[in-house]
């Protein structure tokens, strides 16, 4: 029963750049004093000294080990303090924690990625990993939605993704405006335009809980198998190491056994979308 190191230990990290993405979301480029190697889907804990800590799935490329980026929506006390950060500020970082997307399992298959709102942040990291594996997939689809065009994360980058040969991308907004010439409606509606073999394919769903619920129901109805649907679940993840008890989901802890789960792992637990 010996132990080495301290799982609560923070790595000193410098804020390199802050980008305002939407009225409520900023992206922070961070440089930890030590290399942090994460895989798409895993999360890190970011601490503002004196204010506290919150979990985020990086939105940057996993193979970039010198820097890490997180896109943070301002929703509470800690995220308000994070939003107040400027380039040069020092923060703390722990992780990476939890499960990653099983990329090897995706190779040779058709892959559908469904994103909603702030779910674009972790999915950007996943998409970078998938782009790095380009050529290994039969086909790659991205279907994303958010409430308004102004809330669309990485809008310019999405435009360039739309021009890629290895990606079939379609975006929608719940409510359009004069800057928007794309689809209008819920993300579940644009899932009708996915020409792939659902029973053999893989679906990845990430977004706010209500979107996750309906998108999961939709991809199940389309014919995806529960074990081939990957969900990034949101619970109150605090310690990141399966000890503090806050993020229990059935027999799992979201922080240790998730946040990426197969739908088949969690479908029998009551209240997974709450």
């Amino acid at each position, binding site marked *: *029963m010996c132990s080495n190191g*301290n799982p609560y*230990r*923070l790595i000193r990290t410098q804020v390199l750049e802050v980008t305002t993405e939407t009225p409520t979301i900023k992206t922070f480029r961070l440089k930890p004093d030590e290399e942090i190697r994460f895989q798409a889907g895993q999360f890190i804990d970011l*601490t503002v000294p004196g*204010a506290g800590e919150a979990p985020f799935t990086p939105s940057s490329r996993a193979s970039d080990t010198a820097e890490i980026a997180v896109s943070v929506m301002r929703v509470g006390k800690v*995220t308000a303090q994070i939003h107040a950060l400027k380039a040069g500020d020092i923060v703390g970082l722990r992780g990476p924690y939890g499960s990653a997307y099983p990329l090897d399992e995706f190779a040779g298959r058709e892959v559908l990625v469904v994103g909603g709102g702030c779910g674009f942040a972790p999915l950007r990291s996943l998409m970078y990993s998938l782009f790095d594996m380009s050529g290994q997939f039969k086909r790659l689809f991205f279907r994303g939605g958010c409430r308004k065009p102004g809330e669309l994360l990485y809008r310019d980058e999405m435009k360039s993704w739309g021009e890629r040969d290895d990606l079939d991308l379609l975006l929608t907004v719940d409510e359009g405006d004069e800057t928007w010439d794309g689809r209008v409606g819920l993300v579940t509606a644009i899932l009708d335009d996915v020409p792939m073999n659902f029973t053999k394919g893989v679906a990845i769903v990430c977004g706010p809980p209500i979107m996750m619920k309906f998108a999961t129901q939709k991809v199940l109805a389309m014919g995806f198998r529960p074990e081939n649907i990957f969900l990034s679940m*949101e619970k109150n993840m605090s310690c990141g190491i399966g000890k503090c008890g806050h993020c229990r989901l059935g027999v799992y802890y979201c922080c240790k056994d998730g946040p990426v789960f197969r739908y088949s792992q969690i479908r029998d637990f009551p*209240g997974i979308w709450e």
Partner: protein
Amino acid sequence: MCRFITKHGLGALLRAAAGKYDVFVPAQREGRGVYTRLSSNGAAVETGPVRTVDPLKAFFVKPRECVAEGFSPVPPLTENRPLCVVGVKACDLKGFRIQDFVFAGEEFRDPFYCRARNESLIISSDCTSALDTCFCEAFDERPYPRGDFDLNLSPVDGGYVVEMGSEKGAALIASCPGAAAEAAQGQTEARDRQRDEVSAKVRRNLKEFQVPSQQALEESVERHYESTVWKEEAETCVECGACNTICPTCHCFLLYDQKDAARMVRFRAWDSCLMKGFARVAGGANPRRELSQRLRNRFEKKFSFFPKVAGEYACTGCGRCISACPGKIDIRRVMKRLSEHV
């Protein structure tokens, strides 16, 4: 082979141990046992008839402790000497099985817990009586330790029958020459008789309070997930969290930072799953808004989660939560209701 040590001999043994360890013994305060530091004035040492008020876990995961300072990779371990806890009862030893699973399992071992566990000396003892609230036998436990101790003491006439459970315990006995002689057959027989008597008293409790066995609890929370039991039992809950803090198996904690940006200091403090914000996420969404959902969560953890992930019911039958609850929520009554058909 069992040894026998006189009461006086035990005092001498513990005072010798105090050269290396911080020794804690149960003392009776207003009729209830609480752990107190061994006095150096030579007062007689008691092992206590039943479990103490305070759970053993408090020595190993402190109610509040610093877990990180600045950006140092070194855990901020305190300078405390190793612990020797005397008079630990079987129910608290069972608590270790859950706490060990959480804090000393394969992944992410907790350096604070592991150090305390590795260095400590546990001198357990048999219960010589049972409270009305004792129901350890429902979980196939006995009111006397059967393992997980360094030394175990069974009070008999004039002293204690001593069982050695580890090399560390044996070394302590060996270091006090003459402190423990071989136990006579009559002494071990007296011990066994007393064990049977206390066991029988606990089993009478089970009968009187109609406490089901743990086998009857299998899948019971799942069966009763939507039943009215949770709302009804939650009616008198005042969300004080006493059941959590007093429980030998409850392990949940909160990480929080000292409000001083210049000096990054992180603490861990015991948390309670009955508190409204326990599962709430940033932005306000709360999967357990209702108190009844939170009460259900407590029993899910004990009777469903831990049996599935650790192969152990996370209840030791110590009955502390029954005594502590101002709302008179009785875990035995909840168990009985869960064991019934929906």
